[in-house]
């Protein structure tokens, strides 16, 4: 390749207290799939926002096919052929696919013409999509397709994708990869951001690795092992969680025939759910988010109460108990949403330690709070889980997502749970911290606790879980031992590709 498509030269962007990007330079070639790797907080988002015109660099510049490129806003970036698929979709549930796409266009054609173009593009790239379906009825994978097609209609030279596979089943990932390879073959460059190193190894031609806002290396993913890449990201060697042979004890918690509607409007109802977890077991529950994960956690935490007998702990009915009574018994939970659910954003870490720790850590007597003890508990969490913060008096929202996640998981793990339920325990956490959280879960199980781990990260579940079940539209599949389970089988348990397997046939 003589001239790169996009060339970044010394891009720097500072925010108060942190240099998000420091002198970032690299090239993206024509028709190249370029991976951008880095832990959370490494500066990936800031960098792509600069490329997409959402953020202006403090210094440095970019050239697009040799010409200076400095988008002042996303519209300009799009006009220059840069398109982006965000991790979080910006679609209106109540509108149909074509209307949603028209909304994002400068001069949208008549809906009928647009619909035929959508069909055309979707067929060309093997992304079947009915332009007249309402977005609210689409699966996460299909919604992502809407975003991708919206980008492809602009005929982009560079497509930026931010964590595109986090919401997809394995089969959907396969479809997506075929599309991306076809785009590449047609000469479109792709900047691909992901945490999933194996994906990057299959898909990407080159990779640039960021750490703490700086480029720390690049590599050819096909010639590098996932472990090597992870170590470049973290800057130190990684410890793989150790899993000692476990023997499963008596039933610690079981759910029988539970059906419950969601407390929220767009939630998913749980339908006739059965679940058993034994002492010493880690039960992995996979599935794409929004299929009842939050509701399942609510049922277990006591935020959603049910018939007394529907949820039993060691035979004792607890379905009607609230969160406090369940904590007393040793059923602890860590919800997915850190800010606002697991933790109160504007409250200090001490107060947040108190939030769930008050019962088991005895942080009150006769209703009066023991602030000293609460602070001590917060400090123990910070210490044991390597939470990076100046001290427990800092507000929860001043912590980075990964650090807060460590705090939230650590808070429950340190309370010596009998049953621990975690939802997305390592979401947004860097590789080293994720490994230590997984190790903590394994240690808990080895120490005689029962652990239910709800996660979208299948690799994680394969690594730590004894049994695997998938949650799909509020239904839980029959659990199966993780040993010997293939990716295809998991995909089918997760509901396959929502009837889209034939797309590339």
């Amino acid at each position, binding site marked *: 390749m003589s001239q790169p498509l996009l060339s970044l030269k010394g891009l720097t962007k500072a925010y108060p207290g942190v240099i998000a990007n420091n002198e970032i330079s690299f090239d993206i070639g024509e028709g190249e799939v370029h991976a951008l790797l880095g832990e959370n907080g490494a500066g990936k988002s800031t960098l792509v926002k600069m490329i997409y015109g959402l953020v202006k660099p403090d210094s440095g510049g970019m050239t697009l096919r040799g010409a200076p490129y400095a988008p002042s806003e996303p519209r300009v970036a799009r006009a220059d052929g840069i398109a982006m698929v965000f991790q979080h979709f910006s679609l209106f549930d109540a509108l149909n696919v074509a209307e949603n796409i028209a909304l994002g266009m400068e001069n949208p054609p008549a809906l009928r013409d647009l619909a035929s173009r959508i069909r055309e593009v979707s067929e060309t790239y093997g992304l079947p999509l009915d332009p007249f379906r309402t977005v609210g009825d689409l699966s996460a994978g299909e919604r992502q397709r809407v975003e991708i097609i919206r980008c492809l209609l602009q005929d982009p030279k560079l497509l930026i994708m931010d964590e595109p596979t986090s919401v997809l089943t394995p089969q959907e990932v396969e479809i997506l990869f075929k599309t991306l390879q076809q785009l590449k073959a047609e000469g479109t460059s792709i900047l691909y951001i992901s945490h999933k190193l194996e994906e990057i190894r299959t898909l990407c031609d080159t990779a640039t690795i960021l750490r703490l806002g700086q480029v720390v290396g690049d590599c050819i993913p096909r010639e590098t092992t996932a472990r090597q890449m992870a170590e470049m990201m973290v800057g130190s060697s990684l410890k793989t969680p150790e899993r000692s042979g476990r023997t499963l004890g008596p039933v610690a918690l079981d759910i029988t025939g539970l059906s419950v509607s969601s407390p929220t409007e767009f939630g998913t109802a749980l339908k006739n759910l059965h679940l058993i977890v034994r002492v010493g077991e880690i039960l992995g529950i996979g599935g794409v988010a929004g299929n009842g994960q939050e509701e399942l956690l609510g049922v277990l935490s006591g935020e959603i109460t049910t018939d007394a007998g529907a949820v039993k702990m060691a035979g004792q009915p607890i379905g009607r108990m609230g969160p406090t009574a369940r*904590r007393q018994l040793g059923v602890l939970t860590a919800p997915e949403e850190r800010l606002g*659910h697991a933790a109160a954003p504007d409250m200090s870490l001490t107060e947040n330690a108190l939030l769930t720790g008050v019962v088991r850590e005895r942080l009150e007597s006769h209703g009066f*709070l023991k602030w000293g003890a609460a602070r001590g508990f917060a400090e123990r969490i910070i210490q044991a889980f390597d939470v990076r913060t100046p001290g427990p008096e800092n507000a929860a929202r*001043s912590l980075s997502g990964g650090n807060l996640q460590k705090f939230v998981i650590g808070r429950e793990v340190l309370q010596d749970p009998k049953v621990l339920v975690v939802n997305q325990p390592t979401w947004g956490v860097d590789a080293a911290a994720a490994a230590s959280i997984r190790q903590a879960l394994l240690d808990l199980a080895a120490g005689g606790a029962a652990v239910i781990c709800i996660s979208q990260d299948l690799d994680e579940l394969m690594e730590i879980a004894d049994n695997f079940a998938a949650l799909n539209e509020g239904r839980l599949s029959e659990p199966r031992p993780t040993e010997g389970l293939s990716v295809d089988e998991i995909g089918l348990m997760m509901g396959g590709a929502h009837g889209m397997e034939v797309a590339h046939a």
Partner: protein
Amino acid sequence: MIRLEKRPQPSRAWSMATPLLAVVATMVFGGLLFAALGKNPFVAIQTIFWDPLFGEYSFFYRPQLLVKGAPLVLIAIGLSLGFRAGIWNIGAEGQYIMGALAGAGVGLAFYPLDAWYVFPLMVIAGALGGWAWAMIPGLLKVKFGTNEILVSLMLVYVAELILGSMSTRLLKNPEGYGFPGSRNFNDYPAGNSWIAQDLGMHWGVAAALIAVIFAYVLLNRHMLGFHIRLSGEAPRAARFAGVNPARLILLCLGLAGALAGMAGLFEVAGPAGQINIDFNVGYGFTAIIVAFLGRLNPLGILLAAALMALTYIGGEIAQDNLGLPAAAIQMFQGMLLFFLLALDLLTNYRLRLAVKERT
């Protein structure tokens, strides 16, 4: 260009400094307003802020400060607990009236019995009256999800109508020559809230101080206070922590109602003296301002109530002595709230002179 930038966490220093800054800004702009009305701004400000405390006639005004401040503190403390939890009871005025009616009703029923237990029973009845009135929006919200802002506000007008009916019918003084209004509690020692009338001391002042201490301990040391704050800041986290939202709503509204009701009773049994058509003068609404001016913090509320009482009394002096229109005084008080809320932004954000962006 000036930009606002969110602070990583709220600034403690600014949350202390903004009320002071707001007072200063009010003085400056209020002064401009008075100057525009052709009055000497310095004299006007001095009349409002200095004379009631240290002026020639301060012996007369100082007791007035206690009389005006006490109900504001009592009501604002109750409201602040609800506001902290995200429960917007703005009908304290109605709860205040109903408390006064219930308490006065009990007192008048005992008239002219001279027994030590009459006044305590009146206080209890006053608290229950306010509590019961506040339970209406509370139960409606818990059972049917109605909006407590609307219901509690509407009930103020209902309470005013009941007050009118009571002062001309059921509680009317039989020896009052047909004038509306109940017997005067100042003529009934057993049912009287004064401790030392010439100092402005009545049981409401004592109750207000106790309420401040109670609320301070509750919010800072007690599990319930923690749950109140948690519910306001992160309702979902509060549910996760085991808070029962319905119970908390009833508790906060009930406490606020009881305190407002007590404030009404102390007022009717002392400074006001009798139930009458014009008994309520807006303490229940002013207390909302006081609660926010005090940053929903019990000690802050104490200071804020003192400040509001001062502007009330000082404002009256300014009207009498300088001929300032009443509307100007109300604008002055409005400015105070405006500046407070506007400057509050600085607690969570900082101003930054934007460096010119690269073009």
